């Protein structure tokens, strides 16, 4: 919401300067976004008259002007087609900075003729977009020659831009802002009659004739529709004071009839609409739109309507989307002579729904959906009619009042002690009453109830009154009171899941992985590789951010690809985030490894790429950090379509519960993100990791074994496709009491090993209990190991 200081002072009698007002606005919740003095940058430019204009001797399109800018006539070269003797415009002298094209004027030779400055266009001074020729001020400026243009044009009035929160419709007009400032002690609110005295006044126009033919069919959407017509108007330019106000806040003056509606809306927060009666077919009705009906709105777009929307229509067609935007077909023009002025009250909810559905963000909608003052129809219409007759002439008709606006004042409980119990600040009841009184609230003598002014639809309960009081009194006066805290050291609050995430995140970083955060939404085709997504956005920001990710891999792979592209040799990235599958969100830790696992070096020679075992090592280390029972995990297949079928696996706790997937990714997945190097990856599914039950702090009793462990090596020949893990498990299971570890230390194929076979060598660790093993016992254990291995088709190598 923009307005100027001068405009504000039409309503507010105050001595406060712009700084004090700006500061007060922010303090009471009308946040100042910007205060600009538009005249400052134009201080050097002057009103000037072209005394004569001669063709330039050496250029067809240039003229040589003699300009009176308040001193001796100056010679100025000008290229504008409209430059001519007698016209009055705006002159920039040498030294002036021209804001549009951004340069400083100098005395210059233009095709051999000296030019002492420049006659300026609207665009050059950043006053608008027009650039066909230089500014023409008209004869009225004759008396102002030599005067600074910013003074002449009233550009010295600072423009204030405030952010109005959605609850404060009343401040979507200058008067409401003035009322708030007055309540905050920044001056006195002038009576409305005084403000509008010179614009015609606020009293209804006395007439005896009939009012216009209007009625309401949809009283839910449009509870009240007041109208008055004026015949025989001349739609002229609006007066300079009005044009200046509108221009200052960035609204283009169009014609008096249009400007009046814009002005009243910005001044009083009261939207109006003016119809050209010549373009209406009979009377107007506020009714629901019929399915299939259309309207060409003032923004030159056609909208399809339905019966949830309230429209204003005549016998033939729809002339406006009620409270949102008028229709093009009955808009006023220069030829208009008879007008109908609409001042209605539309249901805020209905306006909001219609506005959302049609996606029209109009100024009228903004105000009606927040709720305009329902008690201001009579005066609003009177002010509009008087402005029309004052500025455009004509004769007013009688007033038609269809329906009744909901003017009954809401009564809310007033609890003066709540300022202390909710707001934490002591403000005596008298002060509270005074503040609320200045804001228009009416409090009963017993201090128990308050009537809410009709323009404050947002105030519905005692907490709202607390806010009003504190806001005006000064929220900075609220003291700082410590939150009560229980005695002693703070209790731990983190949940098991939170601690799990923290541990995993830091364990991954410890292993050289960098934590990335990638978008939760990905492209549809990327998701398809991972089984697709059941969450597709209705309004995605782009095609590659369209569905909720079923895997963190696409985002991380894209990041890996970008890193490799800018010459990163070794990419280790991880992300801890959610996958969106079915109806739930699954916390997941995903790692990707691409490029060099180890760089080339003087010790190891050439570099080594990542392989599936790097992924396995990372998966196991992280599961260990997570407290998962790593030694009980099964290594199984079925990693999924995204993975290299021969170089990936799952880690499961029992045959169903997959804790992690690891290995090399499928080249097809990599190709989708333009990756042409192998990528190792791990996915750890946090919600599959069983929560460790708390056993208290006491550990089970423990004493280290007294006797030394012994080791024995066994080499077996097995089928080449036997999983190594099967043999190790068989060996380890041969004697669960004595065997405490079985570690594979050699895998060999080649000379001495038959085709289709491989040799696996296992070091078995045996832990004696009370007594050392005897030779017989050791042999018996060895026999059991060999027998157990034989069940896997293994034979002991001789």
């Amino acid at each position, binding site marked *: 919401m923009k307005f100027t200081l001068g405009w504000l002072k039409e309503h507010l009698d105050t001595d406060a300067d712009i700084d004090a007002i700006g500061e007060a606005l922010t303090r009471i919740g009308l946040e100042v976004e910007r205060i600009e003095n538009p005249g400052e940058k134009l201080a050097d430019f002057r009103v000037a008259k072209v005394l004569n204009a001669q063709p330039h001797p050496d250029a067809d399109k240039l003229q040589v002007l003699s300009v009176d800018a308040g001193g001796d006539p100056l010679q100025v070269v000008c290229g504008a087609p409209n430059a001519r003797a007698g016209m009055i415009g705006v002159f920039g002298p040498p030294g002036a900075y021209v804001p549009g094209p951004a340069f400083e004027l100098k005395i210059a030779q233009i095709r051999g003729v000296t030019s002492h400055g420049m006659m300026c266009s609207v665009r050059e001074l950043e006053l608008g977009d027009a650039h066909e020729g230089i500014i023409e001020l008209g004869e009225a400026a004759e008396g102002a020659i030599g005067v600074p243009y910013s003074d002449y044009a009233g550009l010295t009035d600072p423009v204030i831009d405030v952010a109005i929160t959605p609850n404060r419709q009343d401040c979507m007009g200058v008067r409401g802002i003035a009322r708030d400032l007055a309540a905050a002690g920044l001056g006195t609110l002038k009576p409305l009659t005084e403000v509008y005295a010179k614009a015609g006044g606020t009293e209804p126009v006395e007439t005896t004739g009939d009012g216009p033919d209007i009625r309401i069919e949809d009283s839910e959407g449009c509870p009240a529709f007041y109208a008055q017509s004026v015949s025989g108007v001349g739609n002229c330019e609006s007066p300079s004071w009005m044009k200046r106000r509108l221009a200052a806040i960035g609204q283009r003056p169009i014609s008096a009839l249009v400007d009046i509606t814009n002005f009243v809306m910005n001044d009083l927060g009261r939207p109006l609409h003016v119809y050209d009666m010549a373009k209406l077919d009979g009377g107007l009705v506020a009714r629901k739109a019929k399915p299939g009906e259309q309207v060409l709105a003032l923004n030159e777009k056609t909208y399809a309507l339905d019966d949830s929307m309230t429209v204003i229509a005549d016998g033939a067609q729809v002339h406006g989307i009620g409270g949102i935007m008028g229709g093009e077909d009955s808009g006023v023009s220069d030829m208009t002579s008879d007008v109908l002025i609409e001042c209605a009250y539309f249901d805020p909810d209905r306006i909001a729904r219609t506005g959302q559905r049609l996606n029209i963000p109009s100024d009228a909608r903004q105000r009606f*959906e927040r709720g305009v003052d329902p008690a201001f129809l009579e005066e609003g219409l009177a002010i509009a009619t008087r402005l029309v007759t004052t500025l455009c002439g004509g004769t007013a008709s009688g007033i038609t009042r269809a329906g009744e606006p909901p003017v009954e004042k809401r009564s809310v409980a007033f609890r003066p002690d709540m300022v202390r119990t909710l707001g934490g600040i002591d403000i005596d009841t008298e002060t509270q009453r005074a503040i609320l009184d200045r804001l228009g609230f009416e409090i009963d003598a017993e201090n128990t109830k308050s009537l809410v002014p009709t323009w404050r639809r947002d105030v519905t309960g005692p907490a709202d009154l607390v806010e009003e009081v504190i*806001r005006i009194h000064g929220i900075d006066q609220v003291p700082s009171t410590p939150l009560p805290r229980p005695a002693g050291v703070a209790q731990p609050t983190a949940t098991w899941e939170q601690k799990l995430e923290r541990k995993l995140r830091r364990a991954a970083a410890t292993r050289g992985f960098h934590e990335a955060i990638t978008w939760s939404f990905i492209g549809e085709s990327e998701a398809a590789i991972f089984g697709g997504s059941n969450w597709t956005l*209705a309004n995605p920001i782009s095609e590659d951010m369209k569905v909720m990710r079923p895997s963190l891999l696409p985002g991380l792979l894209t990041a890996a690809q970008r890193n490799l592209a800018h010459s990163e040799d070794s990419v280790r990235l991880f992300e801890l985030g959610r996958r969106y599958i079915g109806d739930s969100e699954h916390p997941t830790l995903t790692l990707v490894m691409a490029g060099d696992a180890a760089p080339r070096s003087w010790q190891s020679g050439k570099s080594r790429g990542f392989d599936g075992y790097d992924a396995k090592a990372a998966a196991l280390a992280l599961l260990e950090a997570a407290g998962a029972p790593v030694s009980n995990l099964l290594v199984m297949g079925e990693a999924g379509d995204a993975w290299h079928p021969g170089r990936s696996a799952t880690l499961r706790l029992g045959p169903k519960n997959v804790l992690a997937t690891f290995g090399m990714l499928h080249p097809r997945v990599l190709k989708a993100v333009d990756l042409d190097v192998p990528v190792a990856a791990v996915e750890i599914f946090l919600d599959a990791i069983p929560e460790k039950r708390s056993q208290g702090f006491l550990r089970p009793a423990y004493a280290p074994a007294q006797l030394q462990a012994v080791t024995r090596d066994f080499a077996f020949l097995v089928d080449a496709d036997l999983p190594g893990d099967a043999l190790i498990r068989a060996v380890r299971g041969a004697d669960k009491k004595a065997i405490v570890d079985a570690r594979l230390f050699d895998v060999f194929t080649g000379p001495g090993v038959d085709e289709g076979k491989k040799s696996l060598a296992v070091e078995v660790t045996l832990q004696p209990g009370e007594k050392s093993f005897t030779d017989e016992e050791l042999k018996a254990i060895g026999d059991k190991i060999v027998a157990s291995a034989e069940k896997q088709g293994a034979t002991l190598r001789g």
Partner: protein
Amino acid sequence: MTTDIDQLRDDLLAAIDTAAGLDALDAVRVHALGKQGIITAQLKSLGKMSPEERQENGPHIHGLREDVTNAIATRKQALEDAQLEARLASETMDMTLPVDAVAPGSIHPVSQVMDELAEIFADLGFAVASGPEIEDDWHNFTALNIPETHPARAMHDTFYFPKDADGKQAHLLRTHTSPVQIRTMMQGKPPVRIIAPGRVYRSDSDATHTPMFHQIEGLVIDKGITLAHLKWTLETFLKAFFERDDIVLRLRPSYFPFTEPSAEVDVGYSYEKGRRVVGGSEGWMEVLGSGMVHPNVIRACGLDPDEWQGFAFGTGVDRLAMLKYGMDDLRAFFDGDMRWLRHYGFAALDVPTLSGGVGA
């Protein structure tokens, strides 16, 4: 007799001293103390002597044996030391050569700041709560006193999922962490003290906005909680977070549908080495939205607003990270660029603690 022994001692000690190596030394030992050794022979001869002779010669012979034994031991140690030193001198490595090591990884600033916040608020008795990112309309808007026709909805730039078969807008991506307030109040019994950090989504993308970012919500529901407690909590939190005592807050009345009264909170900043830092009051910037939880919200969660009241606040986690650690481009947070992560990320073991200071 004694002259013979003295002579023998001199000879043997000279031989020990000049033994060139351990082998030569051992030869001397055998020559003197071996089974056939000279001193061994001398000792044996004691048995054949008369008691008087033995008393006379015994000490001399035993003295000789002891002196020679000691001398051999000393010489042996010296020779061994020399040998070890010679070996080590030949075993040099160029210790300036580089070694292979996995380069350290890093923790993302957003995670680090979330850990910092959890640590600070744990001390104030706040637990960490979470909720779904794919939310329903009721939790994200309606329960927060934002009915369907509320203008604030349009300001949220919401990402929607397609409507149900019956035309109802069931699901959306949460636009703020505030629905966690609702879920917390409905799940547990007051008193409540929680913070809720997490991802939120708005359909907005430009230099300072990304369609996904992180917020943190705070909620206190109890008896007798006022705006003054809110002010203290925010001051205390910001002082702890920025580890500065000169944090100045400015509350401004504002509007959020789910709080009443509502306040936006500005924090004072100043300039250090040409960069804007939080602290002091050369200027103000907006950091938090806050207010007393609206009675309608408390009621929507099944609680009696005449019995329970409290405050809520929310702020951007990414923004807090930027203010504290000086990143200037939000978009870089989501690029996964390892150069950026190395520069702005945190070491794995930089775990925020109150005793060590939460900042790193």
